[in-house]
């Protein structure tokens, strides 16, 4: 099943929207400045609607089925968050309005800063970063600036465990620092000996994901953060996995100095097909002066409470226009207010329960490189005994035939044929059972009829796609309109 392109259903003269005539006199247009042609499609409103509805039907989404994409926390996106975020008192505010005209929005942002501070233990919060990776860059620039501010300008290395997400090393380079990779030990923790070897007065700090990307809580995390601090470095926490920690522990209490939140993971804001998300950053009191701003503060010397903007004194500078992805922040705020402290803890508990339960159902069939109690996700190897040429990718593609979105594939890199599975707390036991049954059935199929897996998926709108062709200079086509 394929859908024609907008350009292919376009017909000269069709309109998808009618606009009014000007209510003022027409001014002459400046000759020599104008364009000749504007090659946009011309479609009727109904054709437009059908086109996008058809496209939507080609997607798997949380709303259509189970989406255990590890590291992404594909939980249910509550509808009330959408309704609230669409209120005109939020969507129809100009970011440059004077603060006294936007107190409603400022109250929401201020309280969200407070909530995130309470959940994480960090007194300084900036809501400005737009996504996790954006928060990472913010955090690493803060660490760099804080150390340079102390005169330690020789520090130019960030330590990154070998299990880290690709954004961690990429962020390091973008921040002008060098990556040194730290090995993991046999239990899936940071290898303390490897860490000690690389700690020196060259080190800005360590970027650590905890629970890590194996879904494991680092059993020596306090020792890890202590060692980094002892060497004069700072510890960055990649908060992608905070869903397992809500009300379980505060990252600041583990010795982290900076952390980003992933509101589109932990706090139920929709992933949008790849964004927008939000990646607020939390820091210790000592680092708060380096945060990007503006952030919302209470104005002193006012009679009634009044909120306004403030740019921290030694700020690294703004990381985007204005204050952050406000519409996303409204959703996360609503989510936290709906759940409260107890609800958030239940989120973490049930996320971890669901993951351990699912693991218990497939343990023994799919190799488990680190056999420990997992947190909100776990990583197995997509290798099946008796089916030597079946790969993780084949298993993933075959899962589509059972109506499931595959797990994350080939990440983390330290697990061969990794399948990273994150069920989230919003899934029922029935769904987990059905998914486990499918994985078990696929293991059988792999032994009996490996071709069934190699040729999967069979029931999707399209079969496997030729990715090489899409990137090859001779065949690459990146848009419809130009020779490209």
């Amino acid at each position, binding site marked *: 099943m394929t*859908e024609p392109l907008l350009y292919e259903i376009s017909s000269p003269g*069709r*309109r998808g*929207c009618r*606009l009014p005539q*000007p*209510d003022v006199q027409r*001014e002459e247009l400046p000759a*020599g400045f104008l364009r000749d042609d*504007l090659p*946009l499609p011309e479609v009727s409103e109904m054709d*437009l609607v059908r086109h*996008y509805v058809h496209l*939507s039907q*080609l*997607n*798997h989404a949380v709303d259509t089925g189970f989406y255990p994409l590890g590291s992404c926390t594909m939980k249910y996106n*509550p509808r009330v968050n*959408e309704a*609230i975020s669409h209120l*005109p*008192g939020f969507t*129809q505010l*100009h970011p440059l*309005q004077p603060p006294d*005209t*936007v107190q*409603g*929005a400022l109250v*929401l942002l201020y309280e969200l800063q407070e909530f995130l501070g*309470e*959940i994480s*233990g960090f007194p300084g919060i900036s809501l400005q970063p*737009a996504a996790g990776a954006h928060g990472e860059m913010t955090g690493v*620039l803060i660490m760099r600036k804080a150390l340079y501010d102390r005169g330690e300008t020789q520090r130019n290395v960030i330590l990154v465990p070998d299990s880290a997400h*690709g*954004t961690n090393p990429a962020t390091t380079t973008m921040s002008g620092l060098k990556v040194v990779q730290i090995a993991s030990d046999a239990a899936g923790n940071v290898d303390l000996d490897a860490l000690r070897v690389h700690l020196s007065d060259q080190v800005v700090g360590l970027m650590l994901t905890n629970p890590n990307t194996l879904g494991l809580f680092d059993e020596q995390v306090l020792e890890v953060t202590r060692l980094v601090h002892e060497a004069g470095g700072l510890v960055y926490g990649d908060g992608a996995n905070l869903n397992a920690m809500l*009300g379980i522990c*505060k990252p600041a209490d583990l010795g982290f100095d900076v952390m980003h939140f992933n509101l589109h993971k932990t706090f139920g804001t*929709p992933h949008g*097909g790849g964004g927008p998300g939000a990646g607020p950053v939390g820091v210790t009191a000592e680092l708060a002066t380096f945060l990007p701003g503006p952030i919302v503060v209470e104005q002193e010397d006012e009679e009634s409470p009044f909120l306004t903007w403030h740019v921290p004194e030694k700020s690294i*500078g703004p*990381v*985007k*226009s204005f204050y*952050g992805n406000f519409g*996303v922040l409204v959703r996360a705020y609503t989510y936290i207010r*709906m759940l409260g*402290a107890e609800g958030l803890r239940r989120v973490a508990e*049930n996320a*971890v329960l*669901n993951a*351990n339960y699912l693991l218990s159902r497939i343990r023994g069939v799919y190799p488990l490189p680190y056999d*420990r109690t997992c947190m909100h996700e776990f990583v197995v190897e997509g290798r099946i005994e008796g089916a030597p040429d079946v790969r993780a990718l084949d298993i993933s593609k075959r899962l*589509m035939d059972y109506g499931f*979105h595959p797990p994350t594939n080939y990440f983390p890199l330290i697990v061969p044929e990794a399948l990273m599975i994150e069920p989230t707390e919003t899934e029922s036991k029935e769904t987990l059972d059905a998914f486990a049954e499918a994985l078990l059935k696929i293991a059988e199929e792999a032994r009996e009829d490996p071709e069934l897996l190699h040729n999967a998926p069979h029931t999707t709108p399209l079969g496997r*796609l030729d990715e090489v062709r899409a*990137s090859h200079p001779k065949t690459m086509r990146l848009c*419809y*309109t130009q020779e490209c």
Partner: protein
Amino acid sequence: MPYIPNTDADRAAMLAAIGVERIEDLFHDVPEEVRFPMLELPDPLSELEIQQELLMLSEVSIDLNHTACFLGAGAYRHFIPSVVDQLISRGEFYTAYTPYQPEISQGTLQAIFEYQSMICALTGMEAANASHYDGATAVAEAVITAFNVGRRKRKKAILSPMLHPQYRAVARTYTQGMGLTLIGDDDLSNGVDALAALCDGDTACVIVQNPDFLGQLYSPAEMQTLADAVHGCGALLVVAADPISLGLFAPPGDYGADIVVGEGQPLGNPISFGGPYLGFFACRKRYVRSVAGRIVGETVDTQGRRGFVLALSTREQHIRREKASSNICTNQALCALAAGVYLAAMGKRGLRQVAELCYHKAHYAAAEIAKLPGYEIMGDRPFFKEFVVRCPQPVDKMLRYLLDDWAILGGYELGRDYPELDDGLLVCVTEMNSREKIDELVEALAELGGPRQGGEVS
């Protein structure tokens, strides 16, 4: 608990299958001294309560439905047809994630491909990516792209002083560790000729905005002259553009731009207190391997049917890690979807019509204001939807008066960014401003007018 379907019976069965007694037992790896902190958060609310409370909170602010808005400066109020929100609110779009698995993500992938195609059409470029966080970060990434195209040997980027102040600030934040210097924007008199003169063999790129932050337009001819000078130094020309203006004015691809970026919010995304927006990014095909972010390409499936996939991913962080062109992962996909639906709904003629409405109304407003004693429209360049009014009274006080007495957001106080222009008010007029409201603005300004006479604001 909301959103958690497990019942007590489910939990008991699951714990038994795992082989532990209590959920708490699953957290034995968490150091005991920090385990299970009390969180001080407001009590949970039902949906009924939260709807009531947040409706009230939202009404505390003065929204643009209840005030006349002539404020732009990087965030714009444009008409959004109903189909945009209706279509992007389909759960199949907004509850999916990055289309890593193309067989079950063709909807998102094709929509991005179409968005890329329309951005190329608009800008006159040959390739576009799937979006950046906003216009400012797209500018920053353009600097980095140019730096990489120059093999990191060219260590200078030249910025127009009339490039949006936030874009310049964000570009500085992004590049602070890279050993790049950003120059040219410290002197307001640096026009395109002066920027061309600054360009040398150490320059990675020159960045100008057209129309610029003050609303002024540069002709294709003078832009081409700049492009030739920039290319003569072996550098790239980056143009930041208002996408609505491109419905009417020559695309940067026509006058030598190598990279075209901008704030995509005006394309079907609400003003939303500053976000979420999207940065669009388009370039010549020869630079595409240095670009940041997701790019969708066309291909075929096993049966030869057309389909779409994420292309050129060897540039990206999940493959290249520390050697990636950027760290960007999640972008602003749903905002780009909105932009795509918007562009398709407007189509070839609609977008031009929107641009013309802005142009005519802005010129009407400028002409009327120019008639008032004490006011002057700055400069004599053609402009699009924004223009600078030099005012007879302190701008901050005037704005306060307009808001308090007339319920008008009168514009942006330029002195905040340009001390030399402290009598400058940046006024924005779009298709959303009726003649009636424009006349009201003029009337209000008239009341304040005259060089320090009558209507003095207190």
